[in-house]
């Protein structure tokens, strides 16, 4: 069963960043260490920590989807279980166990790995749709168990703890946000490096081979099931680390950490970023967290926009954001990127207008439906107007239609410029 080479899941011969050299890692580490000097506020650090946790989780998810070709709808289970277990260990520390907090993620990882070992033993026998459905079923099973097995999952309130009760490390008790930030990025770097190096080992390579062509791999001496199982276990380990980082940051875990919504979100994050690239999930996690934080402040329809964005990505840019950037490497290297500047600039304004007016249309509609009787005043993009009046809605519709029309007219030109810019190379998709 060979898959066509244009599948977004099996790309991966192109690279956005060459991670084989030490330089990008050092830059990332230095940037992360200096970051609190720039964004030192408590809320900024919270967001960055959330990003870091999402990155580790998304990278571990991509070990399955991108590198192993396994689509999981239940990956939250391994992060969640790792987190819950870490929480219990944290509480044992409070009870007298000697364990410095920075070592806690190892326990989360091992626990996630242990369950990945158990569940992987039957779920990795087949790839594709069957694997996806089993992951969904197991995910629902574990999420449902969380209200039954109260002693471990804490029922509806979940399990909480206090991270500062362990022995101090170099005088740090991890009470402050900054200290937790350094702990989190330390593990972010370790986990990212670990997952990157894993992809460069024989098993990492064979996981790609099984993903692309499981039959061929079997005739080369590899059991496809064992290869998938190994990837699954490794992925469970790193997901567990993400869970422990969550436990350290938020000091509480609930059913929400296990359920389908969380598993679905990580698929979304990874796919938006670009499944075929190692850095894809990193890009996805950063962009997603920012979007969520910013848009979540301004609109109640954030979920709707996210759904549209996700479907549009699957349909039009299946290689994700990273793929979109990577597409431009070839024209850049050939020195032809200049061909694209003008058409892109021309496309920019109608595109922005289309998005803003489309969103305005939805927001007005939503306001008309949701707002109380008599409350027809709404403000959008800094303009305050009467949502029940005709003109705001009419403006939104007209602007939307006109900008879509312009985009449509420009698309031929952009395509021509694109063909020109990629003329001699075989890059692009």
């Amino acid at each position, binding site marked *: 069963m060979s898959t066509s080479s244009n599948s977004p899941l099996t790309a991966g011969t192109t690279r956005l960043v060459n991670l084989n050299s030490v330089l990008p890692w050092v830059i990332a580490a230095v940037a992360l260490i200096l970051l609190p000097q720039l964004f030192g506020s408590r809320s900024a650090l919270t967001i960055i920590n959330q990003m870091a946790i999402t990155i580790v989780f998304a990278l571990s998810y991509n070990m399955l989807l991108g590198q192993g070709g396994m689509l999981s709808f239940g990956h939250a289970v391994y992060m969640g279980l790792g987190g819950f277990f870490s929480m219990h260990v944290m509480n044992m520390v409070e009870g007298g166990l000697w364990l410095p907090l920075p070592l806690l993620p190892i326990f989360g990882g091992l626990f996630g790995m242990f369950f990945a070992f158990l569940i992987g033993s039957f779920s990795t026998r087949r790839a594709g749709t069957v694997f996806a459905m089993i992951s969904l079923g197991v995910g629902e099973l574990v999420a449902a168990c969380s209200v039954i097995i109260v002693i471990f999952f804490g029922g509806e309130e979940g399990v909480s703890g206090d991270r500062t009760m362990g022995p101090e490390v170099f005088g740090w008790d991890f009470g402050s946000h900054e200290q937790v930030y350094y702990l989190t990025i330390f593990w972010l770097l370790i986990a990212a490096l670990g997952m990157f190096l894993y992809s460069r080992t024989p098993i990492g390579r064979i996981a790609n081979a099984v993903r692309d062509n499981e039959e061929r791999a079997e005739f080369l001496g590899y059991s496809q099931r064992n290869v998938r199982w190994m990837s699954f276990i490794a992925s469970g380990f790193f997901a567990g680390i993400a869970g422990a980082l969550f436990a350290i940051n938020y000091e509480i875990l609930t059913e929400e950490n296990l359920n389908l919504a969380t598993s679905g979100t990580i698929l979304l994050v990874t796919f938006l970023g670009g499944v075929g690239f190692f850095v894809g999930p990193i890009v996805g996690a950063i962009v997603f967290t920012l979007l969520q934080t910013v848009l979540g402040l301004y609109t109640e329809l954030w979920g709707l926009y996210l759904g549209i964005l996700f479907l549009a990505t699957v349909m039009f840019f299946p290689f994700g954001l990273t793929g979109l950037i990577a597409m431009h490497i070839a024209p850049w290297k050939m020195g032809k990127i200049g061909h694209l500047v003008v058409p892109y600039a021309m496309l920019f304004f109608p595109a922005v207008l289309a998005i803003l007016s489309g969103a305005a249309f939805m927001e007005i509609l*939503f306001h008309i439906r949701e707002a109380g009787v008599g409350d027809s005043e709404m403000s959008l993009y800094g303009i305050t107007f009467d949502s029940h009046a005709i003109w705001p809605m009419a403006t939104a519709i007209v602007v939307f239609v006109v900008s879509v029309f312009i985009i449509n007219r420009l698309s031929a030109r952009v395509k021509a410029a694109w063909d020109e810019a990629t003329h001699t190379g075989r890059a692009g998709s």
Partner: protein
Amino acid sequence: MSLLIVNILDGLVTGLLLFMLCSGLTLIFSMMGVLNFAHASFYMLGAYFAYQISLITGFWLGLIVAPIAVGVIGALIERYGLRRVHKYGHVPELIFTFGLALLIEEVVQFFWGRSQLPYNIPEALDFAAFSIAGNSFPAYKVFMIFIAVGIFITLLYILTKTRIGMTIQAALSYPETVQNLGHNVPLVFMGVFGVGTAMAGLAGVIAGPILGTFPGMAVLLGSIVFVTIVIGGLGSLWGALVASLLIGWIQTFAATYNVRMEDILTSVGFTKPEPVWDSAWQDLWTLTLPQIGPILPYLLMVIVLVFRPQGLFGKRES
């Protein structure tokens, strides 16, 4: 005894409802190789459409128009969405339908809000059909059984007696051959997707008044539907039927009979630790059958997969 009969009938209603979803899902899967993650979302759309129509014309027109509307939307989504993703392979298709499920839920919330809608049983059917020793059985459920069995018989007739049915049958037995053939008949794909989603829509129309019409109804039923077809064996229509009924009954019985672990453990000779919430086994002692009812389908799936990876009726891949 009489409770038993009522439970058997109740389980039958749930099972047949599940089967209305599973059969469409299985048909789509067998023909196109796509597992439609958004299948339960079409079920939800059916209920919402029917509610909207019932506001204007009453229940009965919705019963006919809503499934058709859902089917048309399904066919359009296949034509303009799914087909675009088809070239990337089955996993991206599955991801597409997953995104679709998310989006449909958001759209439903956008138009109808987050709370449950007052979509009710039509008055004409709002009475007890019969009662056995004090346990009454609503006429509406009888109606549901008739609709589901009617659909099942129609489906059986189309599959075994018509030309298009023969093609679909061939797809069930020799998926690869017809899949290759299928590339030349996109219209059949569109049709099967439309009919499959319409059936899900119909299930939604008739289930909405009983199970509730709210934005979470798709997720609630969706996972069970997927688990059902995995248990039955992906692509097997008979497997889907058997597994649907099995799960329908398991869930109904588990919800009715309050078997308590405490009683079992005491009867085997264990003593209950007091107070129980200090014991490490507290969860085991307080376990009851209704409590674990919702997870039984998932447990069943795990057990089936461990012993029979291809599902109850699935064909083993050579």
